[in-house]
């Protein structure tokens, strides 16, 4: 873009200023919405009742081991990601393929259990 003119005066401003402003605005907003969501989750403003209960097609509920294992693997994956970023805060971490496979398997177990309960086969 080249050097940009300074508003209402002479001289030039850095051409990094708009990019810096945009980056700062994006980062602040993401930090704020993340903190807000985490706060709402921790204080119960977002309803988590029945998180570990599966639904049946007849309207009944049951304690779902599939949901429990999905919750465990989700939390483990999230903790792993954050620990990697805390150790190397200069880039997003490389996610091992093994982790993706484990998560994929966990999703399949969850979906299989849900399908069995809802579709009754």
């Amino acid at each position, binding site marked *: 873009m080249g050097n*940009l*003119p*300074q*508003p*209402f*005066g*002479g001289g030039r401003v850095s051409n990094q200023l*708009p990019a810096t*402003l945009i*980056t700062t*605005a*994006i*980062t602040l*907003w*993401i930090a704020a*919405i*993340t903190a*807000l*969501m*985490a706060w*709402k989750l921790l204080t119960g403003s*977002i*309803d*988590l*009742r*029945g*998180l*570990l209960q599966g*639904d049946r*097609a007849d*309207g009944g*509920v049951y304690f*779902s081991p599939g*949901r429990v294992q*999905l*919750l465990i693997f*989700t939390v483990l*994956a*999230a903790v792993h*990601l*954050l620990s990697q*970023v*805390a150790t190397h*805060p*200069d*880039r*997003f971490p*490389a*996610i091992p393929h093994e982790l*993706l496979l484990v*998560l994929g398997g966990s*999703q399949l177990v*969850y*979906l299989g259990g*849900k*399908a069995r*309960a*809802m*579709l*009754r086969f």
Partner: protein
Amino acid sequence: MKQSALWIGLAVVVVVTLYMLFGKGDPMERAQLTMMYATVVVIVLYAVVVLVAIATGEISIGALLSEAGGGASMSRFQLLIFTLTIAMSFVFIVVSTKQLPKVPTEILTLLGVSASTYAVSKGIQAGGELKPKTDGSTDKN
């Protein structure tokens, strides 16, 4: 809050218009700067309005994770956790490096897997609600 945002936005439009008309420098560069700053300010204002509305409860997200029949959805919860995790990582990285990071394919794959699970889960839920019950009725309730 919306009215304040409206007045601030109007003030910004007036300022950038004055700059556009009376500022020094090449007209084309001034026009480019004007468009760029005006767009950024409007988007930021909208983002702040949404953020404040969520914080004050004007936009209710209490049922964000709830399924149609009640109870929290595990697939929605997972998608939310991964989104928040990646967002927090993004903030850490930007604060450390002072620039926007490149997003590796594996991160997108992780989000894609979670989003796909959510979509399939919705499909299963919908299929279960449409399936006739043992007494012959199809009423979801």
